[in-house]
């Protein structure tokens, strides 16, 4: 981000104290959340507390080498992002500095004191107007469009600009700063707009979500779906699959735009996205996934204040694309690192700590963040959505800690990762007994119409089998499985099939990584077919041991790895029917 502002009153303040990322200035006119420039190197910072004449500032860069007495100046602006063509395919740090530009300016390591604008101010974009002279335009109105990647970027009147009548509208190649529209009161608008990150962008109306975000992940779409415009949390201990699940969503979900925030996590994971996404195709458009993606990478070893900001930078960019009418999905990995950044800053401010040292406003900040998700009618009347999926990293994997608990109070979908599952390499390691989705009811109509009228029923059936298995497992642990009644032995086998065939999905298999709704339905139906035949056979006197010899059952897992699976599946189902017929007639 680059801040071009004027000193509020021209007077420079002076640094009084430096202790890590928090510094104190005096003789500075400042308001809360003003962006200031700290020290001779003009490091960017933000006012976070005012106490008498002491202005307390969090600095977004390393403060080593800064001394008391160095100057501080106020830009008089709040922390804002640049919005306009050029966002897509970018990778930014927490305060929207493009990492590629930083490499050019300072090499392979992130040094400090370099400012870099979020958008290129020299690149020309071809702007096609969609309004004409004399048109009345309201705040948020779409003035025209730019073919940014394969995505069309809608250029809008800023939401906080007053309505007016178009006097001139241009067409042709422009930089983001050049005026493309003049209103009859003389106001001039370029393509770029700046929006303060801590303020949600306004909408006309928030609607209730009714359409699922299709992720291609069977356990998510099949058992615990998230709606477009919904919120989900994915807590889990280290190594349980938070990042892989979020990356799977970034790759395969049917959102039109993806904002991926690496908040206080690993550098190599961001590099992985950067290397992989340009080569992966969006299953819908066939275009490289990178073209619909914006990455924010403020890794664990980058400054904590910028980590705190990264989540706001990301959600503001997501809202901007939502206002164009797109379905946006935003992943934040990990919201716990964001909460820890708040905790670190708060403790340096010597604020009264709440639970486990987190500031008392932790719950408020979390809910304000997730509230920025939603299915909306934008100011311009477009329908768009922001779905938010937040990873949570509970210390020791214990979900009773404050970040997990405060998050669960807000979000509607809970994907509970389970170390026991990941240790046995059951992936995605989402526990089917503890997880839930509160969108199921709202999405029923969609499944009826778009998947099959049978879908909701077969889903409930699968959940029941899994619940039943959990109860039966308790008995098995005491007496062994042979002691169960025969029909329940069949249930145990069917549950195993649901887990191993349907729920397990290998993110690294080129076919299994994505499974569309039709295939999900077909797979579940095949398992149900086995169950129906097996229970019938059992009633007819076939023993569970014999049922387990059915060969076609063992072929079923292979379906996962076959792209055009239909002929093979039909063959297996036919064979299954025949095998059970033989068993029944022998009984």
């Amino acid at each position, binding site marked *: 981000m680059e801040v071009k502002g004027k000193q509020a009153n021209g007077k420079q303040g002076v640094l*009084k*104290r*430096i*202790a*890590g990322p928090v510094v*104190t200035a005096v003789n500075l006119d400042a308001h809360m959340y003003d962006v200031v420039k700290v020290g001779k190197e003009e490091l960017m910072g933000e006012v976070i507390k005012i106490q008498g004449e002491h202005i307390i500032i969090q600095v977004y860069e390393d403060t*080593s*080498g*800064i*001394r*008391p*007495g*160095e100057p501080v100046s106020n830009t008089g602006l709040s922390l804002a992002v640049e919005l306009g063509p050029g966002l897509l395919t970018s990778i930014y740090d927490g305060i929207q500095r493009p*990492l590629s530009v*930083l*490499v050019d300016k300072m090499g*392979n*390591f*992130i040094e400090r004191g370099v400012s870099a604008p979020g958008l290129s101010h020299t690149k020309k974009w071809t702007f096609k107007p969609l309004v004409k002279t004399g048109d009345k335009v309201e705040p948020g109105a779409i003035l025209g469009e730019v073919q940014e990647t394969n995505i069309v970027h809608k250029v809008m009147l800023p939401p906080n600009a007053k309505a007016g009548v178009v006097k001139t509208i241009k067409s042709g190649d422009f930089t983001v700063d050049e005026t493309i529209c003049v209103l009859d009161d003389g106001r001039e608008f370029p393509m770029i707009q700046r929006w303060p990150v801590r303020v949600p962008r306004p909408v006309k109306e928030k609607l209730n979500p009714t359409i699922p975000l299709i992720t291609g992940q069977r356990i998510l779409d099949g058992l615990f779906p998230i709606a477009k415009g919904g919120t989900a949390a994915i807590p889990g*201990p*280290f*190594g349980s699959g938070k990042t892989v699940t979020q990356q799977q969503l970034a790759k395969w979900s049917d959102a039109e735009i993806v904002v991926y925030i690496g908040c*206080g996590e*690993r*550098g*190599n994971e*961001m*590099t*992985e996205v950067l290397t992989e996404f340009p080569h992966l195709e969006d299953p819908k458009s066939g275009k490289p996934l990178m073209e619909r993606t914006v990455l924010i990478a403020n*890794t*664990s*070893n980058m400054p*904590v204040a910028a980590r705190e900001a990264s989540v706001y930078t990301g959600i503001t960019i997501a809202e901007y694309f939502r206002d164009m009418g797109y379905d946006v999905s935003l992943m934040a990995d990990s919201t716990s*690192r964001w909460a*820890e950044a708040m*905790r*670190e800053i708060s*403790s340096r401010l010597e604020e009264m700590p709440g639970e*486990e*040292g987190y500031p008392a406003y932790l719950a408020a900040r979390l809910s304000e963040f997730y509230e920025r998700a939603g299915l909306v009618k934008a100011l311009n009347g477009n329908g768009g959505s922001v779905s938010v999926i937040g990873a949570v*990293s509970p*210390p*020791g994997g214990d979900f009773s800690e404050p970040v997990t608990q405060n998050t669960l109070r807000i979000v509607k979908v809970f994907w509970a990762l389970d*170390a026991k599952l*990941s*240790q*046995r*390499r059951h992936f995605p390691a989402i526990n089917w007994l503890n997880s839930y989705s509160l969108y199921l009811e709202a999405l029923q109509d969609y499944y009826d119409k778009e998947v099959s009228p049978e879908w909701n029923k077969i889903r409930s059936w699968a959940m029941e089998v899994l619940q039943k298995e959990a109860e039966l497992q308790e008995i*098995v*642990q*005491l*007496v*062994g*499985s*042979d002691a169960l009644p025969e029909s329940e032995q069949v249930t145990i086998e069917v549950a195993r099939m649901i887990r191993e065939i349907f729920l397990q999905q*290998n993110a*690294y298999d080129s076919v299994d990584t994505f499974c569309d709704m039709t295939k999900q339905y077909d797979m579940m139906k095949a398992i149900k077919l086995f169950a129906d035949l097996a229970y019938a056979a059992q009633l007819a006197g076939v023993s569970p041991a014999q049922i387990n010899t059915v060969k076609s059952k*063992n072929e079923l897992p*292979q379906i996962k*790895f076959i792209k055009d699976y239909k002929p093979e599946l039909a063959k297996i189902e036919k064979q299954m029917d025949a095998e059970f017929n033989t068993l029944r007639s022998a009984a």
Partner: protein
Amino acid sequence: MKEYRTINKIAGPLVFVEKTEPVAYGELVNIVLFDGTIKRGQVLDTSDELVVVQIFETTTGIGRDSGVRFTGETIKMPVGKDMLGRILSGGGKPIDGGPEIVPEKRLDITGAAINPYARGMPADFIQTGISTIDGTNTLVRGQKLPIFSGAGLPHNNVALQIARQAKVPGSTESFAVVFAAMGITKEEANYFMQDFERTGALEHAVVFLNLADDPAVERIITPRLALTTAEYLAFELGMHVLVILTDMTNYCEALRQIGAAREEVPGRRGYPGYMYTDLACIYERAGMIKGQKGSVTQIPILTMPGDDITHPIPDLTGYITEGQIVVNRDLHRKGIYPPINVLPSLSRLMNLGIGNGKTRDDHKKVSDQMYAGYAEGNDLRGLVAIVGKDALSERDRLLLEFADLFENRFVRQGYDEDRTIEDTLTIGWELLSTLPVEQLTRIDRDLINKYHPKIKAGAKKE
């Protein structure tokens, strides 16, 4: 250089200095004792009235009469080509009787973050010769993969075996080793040194030793000196560097001690709230850079207090590193070396380093299938203890046997046994072939037909 005599308080490793000229945050400070001894420290908090300095050595001998010199620069490490083969103290001073390091450069020890855009993706398979690592938790160049262990377990042997055997098949470049000891005993240090000498590894190693009786706070800089050296060797001289940091638990204790001295609000179990960020600034200093030759691979070792993996030290580490190798007491008691429990172990970068053209096309799926079998067999041991073996179904009985075989054939190997990846996968298939083929649901048919020993043998006969 101006010398102040305005110390007004000394508490733990912290020295408070009054009324100075403006002093920079993070600046290196020399404290001069009456006998001329110099102690080094760093500015933690600076304002017009008061400067707080953290000393990296004992504060013994520092008094209100000591002189304080602010050097005007942050802590730098002199680095040069001739460091290889040298033994330095935990504070970076030669302790092998040799000459001072001739500095070619003086580098800031904090080390800036590698820009994620500039990182190269680690993808070169490192063969350690240990099946539980190569086969199921593969290490790649540029990875940070810690060993989680417990007091009295043979983690040092595992680390040394890795350092000795690590190679990238098909590459002629060997690894330079940077070894940093933090608070380990003299005996443990000797163990490492003797092995380095025995194998000739010392010639291409740089050793930093902060031993149990060295100042605890010095441990805060030891890993930073080691990593600064490693980055220099890797990114300026183009070497592949293996960094062994041991024991990170001692490092974290030192961190806790300083936090307490500063009267900070403590986080979980008394460790500072910023320990995640602090550890990340160490562990993230591993990796590769696009278009550059060298790499930094890190193997930190930590002992889990009470063997508890949820303790903040292993917990925060696991959240930062790219997996973990877990050394387990039960396996050790059974007499199995290396006692690596694969179930809680993980290599997050495994998928990038294995497969067709790197190791073998069946690698991932063989690994997944062995995990599934071992996990299930291991669970059944609990059941058998209650209901007896006879109550088991045929399927379960085979899985139970599989778990035993896995530990005895796959996990167990010699301290000097250097298995190729082919050896490792062959053992894997041998074990899997004791299970019914239908049960190998994690492996696609083609691979089963290609590698399953019984099917291959059958196909030949026909």
